[in-house]
């Protein structure tokens, strides 16, 4: 169940991940990890006026972990925090045109990491 079961779009996001890296002095950072699958995802946010101005990620994990991380950053960039919170793991997988079944529960956690980052921002910027 590896490389070979990924579709073109997933492979593209894996090979050319969007928004990879860190944001220095990020407004919010979220991390989720799953030691059994060996995936750890970290999302960095820059928020301005309730809008996600910038987003970056760093991921240790399989092809699906990297591709979903990349996709989630594309999906939320420029969105309001509320709209970003509506983006689910399932929506990320769908935006990628689907993931192999075996990857669905365990490596598809990028939206969770992004939600964690938003929560982190909210905690530090309580109104």
């Amino acid at each position: 169940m590896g490389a070979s079961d990924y579709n073109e779009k997933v492979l593209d996001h894996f090979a050319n991940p969007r928004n990879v890296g860190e944001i220095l002095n990020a407004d919010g950072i979220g991390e989720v990890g799953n030691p059994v699958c060996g995936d750890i995802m970290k999302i960095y946010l820059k928020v301005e006026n309730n809008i996600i101005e910038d987003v970056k990620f760093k991921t240790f994990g399989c092809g699906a972990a990297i591709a979903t991380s990349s996709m989630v950053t594309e999906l939320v960039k420029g969105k309001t925090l509320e709209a970003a919170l509506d983006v689910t793991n399932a929506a990320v997988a769908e935006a990628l045109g689907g993931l192999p079944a075996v990857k669905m529960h365990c490596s598809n956690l990028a939206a969770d990491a992004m939600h964690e980052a938003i929560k982190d921002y909210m905690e530090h910027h309580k109104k």
Partner: protein
Amino acid sequence: MRHIYFDHASTTATDPVVANAMLDYMTTKFGNPSSPHYFGRQVRKEVVDARQQLADLIGATADEIFYTSGGSESDNFALKGIAFANQKKGNHIITTQIEHHAVLHTCQWLEKHGFTVTYLPVDEFGLVSVEAVKQAITDKTILISVMFANNEVGTIEPIVEIAALAKEKGIYFHTDAVQAVSHVPIDVKAMNIDLLSLSGHKFYGPKGIGALYIRRGVKIETVQHGGAQERKLRAGTENVPAIVGLGIAAQKALSELKTEKNRLESLRDKLIQGIEAKIPDAKLNGHRLQRLPGNVNFSFRFVEGESLLLTLDMKGIAASSGSACTSGSLDPSHVLLAMGLTHEVAHGSLRLTLGRENTEADIDYMLEVLSEIVARLRSMSPLNEEHTTGIMASEGKTYQKANG
């Protein structure tokens, strides 16, 4: 795209000479060797000759070879066959934590059916301790099963010492030699091996066939019940094309063993030394010397195995992470965990297994590609903050721009 195959421990291409011989036994000499007529007679001698060819490869006699459908069946046959046939004598089996699942899962099943099993640990190099085997023996022990060489890290176990110990204590000794047969010299007689599993597709023979060597006199019962084939020990119409193919593969393997062993060892060592020279924080898994000729296994800190494989695949290089036989599961390799690696590091293992068609040029290409890939994946890894900082210094501008 140029394709390089570094996954010979998973499976090998059937030798064209073998495949062509098989074709003839599929379409023309297709008879059932048990049949008392021309079509049966046409293949009877071939089956006998092939048995001898295979026996020669491991120092057995032809009547000690029992064909199976592969390595997994051979392991099941050996363990269940010995266990049930010797139940009156005792119910204790000794094996190791790093066996293939065909041994481990069979042992777990036997535990549900009245047997107790000791799973011995290994050291950081994957070696089983002979002393630990000795300590584990009880007066109920009927079988010791220790693999000849490990399929993931390539460590060659101290079989000769363990087999001698088993013989001294009157306990049967089985070895899963699926990864060792044809790659290192094996002489079941000199080595006091009572049972040995092998699989055709691991040494350029056909898939779907293997064998269990059973020393004459060993008390074993059949595990696949039915017809009287294989001297009543393994039922099922003989797979004649595969039997013929396995014989040819065995003969060729034996004739090439010495030179191919030397050649692969030097390619292997070049690859190991190259990786160690070019890639920081690369940990060789397995034993540096007691190692299969074609096996290279590394863990790269902060890098996950599948993404490594995937990138290598995009560059035309076929490798594996952990055992191909355990894919479908997402657990990290039980072998690496038994050797003391953390989950994280175990996930980052890369296995390269070299074979007949690999050349020096393949190794050079691999070294070039691998160091780039590891560096790139590390730059993306959150586990790697320090290293990233180092790398990011050079990529700083991109980040500034993105942030600005």
